[in-house]
């Protein structure tokens, strides 16, 4: 196995800059790895060898002329198949878009292209980003590289598995209720949900517009921060895009330390009822942080208890509206009814019946109900009020600490079969710690904090809105302290890989 695939993105960037290897070599090494492991992992829906090598060749050529290139130029990346890529199939893991090749470009892909990152392919996800196991994909499930009998999490399961499986050093996911942080936790990688509006959503297939956010992922904090820096920035094509200048996330992660940092443990999320190993790993990580000079305080966020309920009204409401456009009239799947008259209504019904999976249908029905006349105030209206309470709770909590911390998920990666996908309600509960950040629009990050029963445990850091820097200022040194204390999660996996 090529040593190139175990390097971090920033190591690759440095090596490319120093001329130690070429982007074509790096890209080819990762493509080889993908083709050798895809049968096991199933991380990708589409692998774009030719496009990736074309970009790599172009970047190598440009670099050889001495021209200025982006710091990450030549470092491969994978995009969740919810990110629109002009000319490359974009499916949202749904039969509805099985053969859809977008005629336009997303801002995310535009930025990636402009910076010269070879795109290795489009990663698997739960259909339209709905699910937390990546079993709800129309194109097969993704498996957790740590243990193929376990799920990689979701919905950015493909993006996370591709990182943990050393198929790619950088990955772009999306996070609506934890879909970047939870799979990062399950795969021992780093997943970031930036402040809402930090990264343009133009060309990100919408699930729930007010909650969706593009999530940079990497195998360490600085890599994720570098990808975040690349993707962030104001986009006039997205009305919710923030006008803020892009801060130095990488340097925040690399140069800060934990002394004097106040970490607020969210009382409601400190681990009661969580899997023992998860709670133990979280507590151990807090000890490491304290030893490195952080101050640990407990903070109360009472409305967080209702966040899950509010989320499961707001999210499906927006889903029901956003997914209405898949009606067989303009693009994607079009089905005619098996019998009876062919009308606009029957074509829509047949198309949607055939094109959407169960989880998507479940949420559309839920949302349609929650928005319907007579129920709006009781459901959607109340949920919006809770959303405001959660925002207020966070604002108050941040008065007494720099960041808030919790385990990312109550469990480690579930096992396929009995544990996963059988009980939607139980799976919804798995998002309890990640959802509040989406409701409040604040940034959150999951980094690996050791193992429980041989599977990674995620440690979540939340920061105030538009202060993503604060999150990196804790995540960077905490990661370093954990590694120094011997908690080198991905190394464990990498060692496993070399003997395979």
């Amino acid at each position, binding site marked *: 196995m090529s040593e190139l695939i175990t390097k971090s993105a920033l190591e690759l960037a440095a090596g490319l800059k120093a001329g130690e290897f070429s982007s074509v070599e790096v890209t080819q090494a990762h493509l080889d790895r993908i083709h050798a492991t895809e049968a096991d992992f199933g991380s990708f829906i589409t692998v774009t060898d030719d496009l990736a090598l074309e970009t790599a060749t172009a970047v190598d050529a440009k670099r050889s002329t001495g021209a200025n290139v982006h710091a990450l130029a030549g470092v491969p990346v994978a995009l969740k198949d919810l990110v629109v890529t002009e000319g490359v199939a974009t499916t949202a893991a749904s039969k509805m878009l099985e053969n859809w090749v*977008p005629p*336009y470009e997303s801002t995310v892909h535009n930025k990636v292209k402009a910076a010269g990152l070879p795109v290795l392919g489009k990663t698997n996800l739960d259909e339209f980003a709905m699910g937390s196991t990546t079993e709800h994909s129309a194109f097969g499930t993704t498996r957790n590289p740590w243990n193929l009998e376990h799920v990689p999490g979701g919905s950015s399961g493909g993006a996370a598995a591709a990182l943990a499986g050393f198929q790619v050093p950088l990955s772009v996911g999306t996070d609506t209720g934890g879909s970047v942080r939870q799979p990062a936790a399950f795969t021992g990688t780093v997943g970031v949900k930036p402040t809402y509006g930090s990264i343009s959503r133009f060309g990100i*297939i919408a699930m*729930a517009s*007010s909650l969706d956010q593009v999530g940079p992922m990497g195998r360490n904090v600085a890599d994720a921060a570098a990808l975040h820096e690349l993707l962030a920035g104001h986009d006039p094509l*997205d009305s919710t895009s923030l006008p803020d200048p892009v801060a130095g996330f990488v340097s925040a992660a690399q140069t800060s330390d934990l002394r004097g940092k106040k970490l607020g443990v969210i009382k409601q999320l400190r681990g009661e009822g969580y899997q023992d190993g998860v709670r133990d790993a979280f507590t151990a990580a807090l000890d490491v942080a304290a030893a490195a000079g952080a101050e640990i305080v407990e903070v109360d966020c009472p409305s967080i208890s209702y966040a899950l309920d509010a989320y499961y009204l707001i999210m499906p409401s927006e889903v029901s509206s956003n997914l209405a456009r898949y009606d067989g009239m303009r693009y994607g799947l079009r089905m005619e009814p098996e019998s009876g008259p062919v009308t*606009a209504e029957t074509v829509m019904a047949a198309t949607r019946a055939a094109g959407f999976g169960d989880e998507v249908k479940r949420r559309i029905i839920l949302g349609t109900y929650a928005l*319907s006349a007579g129920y709006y105030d009781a459901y*959607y209206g109340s949920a919006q009020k809770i959303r405001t309470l959660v925002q207020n709770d966070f604002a108050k909590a941040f008065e007494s600490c720099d960041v808030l911390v919790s385990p990312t998920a109550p469990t480690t990666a579930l096992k396929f079969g009995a544990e996963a996908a059988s009980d939607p309600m139980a799976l919804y509960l798995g998002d309890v710690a990640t959802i509040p950040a989406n409701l409040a629009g604040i940034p959150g990050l999951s980094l690996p904090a050791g193992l429980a029963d041989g599977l990674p445990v995620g440690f979540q850091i939340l920061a105030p809105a538009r202060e993503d820097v604060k999150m990196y200022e804790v995540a960077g040194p905490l990661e370093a302290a954990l590694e120094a204390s011997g908690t080198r999660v991905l190394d464990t996996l990498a060692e496993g890989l070399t003997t395979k």
Partner: protein
Amino acid sequence: MKYEDAIKKYDPVIGIEVHVELGTVTKMFDAAPNTFGGGPNTNITPTSLGLPGSLPVVNEKGVEYAIKIGLALGCEIAETCRFARKNYFYPDVPKDFQTSQSDEPIASEGEVEVELEDGTMFTIPVERAHMEEDAGKNTHIGGATGRIHGADHSLVDYNRAGVPLVEIVTHPITGTGDRAAEVASTYVRTLRDIFRALDVSEARMEQGNVRADVNVSLRESPDAPLGTRTETKNVNSFRSIERAVRYEIARQATRLEAGETIVQETRHFHEGTGETSSGRPKSDADDYRYFPEPDLVPLVPSRDWVEELRATLPELPAQKRRRLAGVWGFSDLEMRDVVNAGLLEAIDDTVTAGAQPPAARKWWTGEVARLANQNDQHPTELVTPAQVAALIGLINDGKLNDKLAKDVLTAVADGEGEPAEVMSARGLEIVEDTGALEAAVEEAIAANPDVVEKIKGGKMQAIGALMGPIMKATRGQADAGKAKDLILAKING
């Protein structure tokens, strides 16, 4: 039951929703061109098609135009408002929801003064003016009626999808009595004139720039609760609005008389017959599942901006009419004729170009209107205010008389050139040769001794009988005043 009888028996209540397409360069939420015509599906972007991943961005010019309309209607402009999604399925709605405003319109509670043809003023209470996007256009192929029923397939053109609209909704309009139909059409005409004055829309009814949905209900008396209403959709000419209201009032009265109930529904208006027919049932419980559009941030028009727009509002048609009536000294009747003929602007411009208001009015509403009428054109399509002013100037200078001026005008309308050029080229100038005039006068006197006697007897108006032969002899180029002086001099001389 006939309209005339229906209106005696029942009290009509009407409500009108007017949609106006704004004349912005691009669409309401994306950069696709906002232009009429073009091949099907050519003025589109991923956003106007609602492609997966596409997002809307508000067109600030559209907001500006909406605020101007709100201000012109005397509305309050919201300090903060939002767009909402109106969710419904239809193939011409690309996202299967329409971006609109529901409980937070940009403008609310205003009123519009309308002046009926006989000068009666009527105040229309405006509930709101809100922004939304237009849908695309379906063409149903294969059926007899062109409607979806019976068609074997439909074509969809999204060129219009996303075009900015402002929808102006009235409160129920009561107290119109037998003038309901006239009030309805005059109101829409008044709005049309306002849109044009604001320069926010070409407001061409025939291109669908302005469309009206007309609600009609009947009740036994003004004290009775509102009756069940019908909504006749997309009526797009003033005459059709009037006919649709008349038809609905007569139809509903007939049903009520027969002891039947009115079904709350949308109805289609048929241009050919002037009748309406049943569309789809519509209830108050139509469930559009409105919720705030999460892809757009709230709209917060700054007070400074609103005041700036208020300060730059042009003079509106009603104000202008009142002001000019005073300045020009026209009677109410004269002013109404001018307005009803759509000649206010033309006369204003003619006066600005140097003509006296009475002369400008006389020429525009007289000879120009007559010529235009022959050609089925609007007077302003025939000649320009500058040309009419020049013509009047030539009359004032004694170079043309009315008869000659009419000939010059006809030639100008035919594109022969400016009035002075036409006059010279055709030799239509008043004859200054007094010898020729004297000869013509003497000839006329000699040939009409009976008329001369009458004039001698003090019947001065009999002079007119001599003018005909004199004009004939001079090929119309005699100066009527001079001729008159000469006649009197010779008879009394």
